């Protein structure tokens, strides 16, 4: 009888520890990477989460760098209008893929964005980086300490964020994205690939004005 109670107690304890363990580690593993995710012939599996309606007929793939001034200008000048007219209305969605090449802080900033994604705040962190970009490359605005400060300002759980960033958890993911960008001929940031409903693609480089996007996307719909 005593033996049965002990065995039962051990089983309950193991199950309890398992449940507690999975609960306490879950924030670290909330990312559901769909390794087969592609848009047109671009593998977007390791890129950002989708901004907007995943079933939108058009996908805008942006290859960018957080230290790139042209990306900054596009983010502030043209992206809001595209968001308002195409992404918010469900006509298009957007995926950001890192082409982090401009300086030593570029890949770290890209990794930090995925550490924020672990806590469900990718796009908030992405926006904060572009809102905080300074005019000089590698002047320290995107070093490890500042990236942690940005995470703190967003209210992220700092122990998780710091361990993620310090461990280079997403180093390979960023490298994969850079190689994917190069594979598709991206030779400048930002470079865009607009994928239409029938998988037709239009690729161009530079932070081009809203009218260019409108003309391409209206032809695709």
């Amino acid at each position, binding site marked *: 009888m005593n033996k049965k109670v002990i065995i039962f107690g051990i089983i309950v304890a193991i199950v309890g520890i398992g449940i507690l363990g999975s609960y306490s580690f879950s924030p670290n593993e909330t990312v559901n990477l769909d390794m087969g995710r592609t848009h047109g012939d671009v593998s977007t599996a390791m890129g950002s989460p989708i901004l907007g309606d995943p079933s939108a007929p058009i996908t805008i793939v942006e290859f960018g760098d957080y230290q790139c*001034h042209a990306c900054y*200008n596009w983010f502030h000048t043209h992206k809001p209008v595209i968001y308002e007219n195409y992404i918010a209305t469900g006509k298009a969605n957007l995926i950001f893929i890192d082409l982090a*090449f*401009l300086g030593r802080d570029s890949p770290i900033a890209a990794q930090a964005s995925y550490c924020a994604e672990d806590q469900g705040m990718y796009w908030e962190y992405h926006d904060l980086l572009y809102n905080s970009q300074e005019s000089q490359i590698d002047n320290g605005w995107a070093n490890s300490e500042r990236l942690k400060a940005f995470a703190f300002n967003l209210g992220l759980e700092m122990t998780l964020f710091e361990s993620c960033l310090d461990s280079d958890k997403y180093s390979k993911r960023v490298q994969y994205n850079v190689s994917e960008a190069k594979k598709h001929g991206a030779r*400048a940031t930002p470079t865009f690939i607009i994928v239409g409903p029938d998988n037709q693609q239009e690729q161009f480089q*530079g*932070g081009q004005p809203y009218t*260019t996007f409108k003309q391409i996307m209206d032809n695709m719909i």
Partner: protein
Amino acid sequence: MLIGLLYLSEFLFFDPFIAGHIPVGTEFGFSLIVILSGLSGLVLPMNVYRINILKNSKGKIGGSVFGSFIGAAAGACSCGPIGFAIISTFGSVGATSMAFLTNYEIPIRLAAIGLLALTYYTTVKSLKIECKLKPQ
């Protein structure tokens, strides 16, 4: 030169459509490109004339070519295809030099304009002397 610099600095695009824009905050940089191109357009032909027609010294063309080249180099956005090619080829050395050109874009362009203005002044002065008709 103006079109080339506007393209390199992402004020002008040719593909997939011809489009141009001046993002907010880049107006000063745009003005410097226009001034730089205008001065290069003045100074370079004047010096070529001095060398070809008057067979005069080649000293001053150095300043105008140097000024134009430096100004143009500062205008090439490091995130553009030229910057990408340099950084891909030369690695961290290329990244550092492109970062320098980007970070000090405005002072470099101002210095290039200053150099071109000085070359223009000295060229005009010497042309006035060299082209002066001698009394018969």
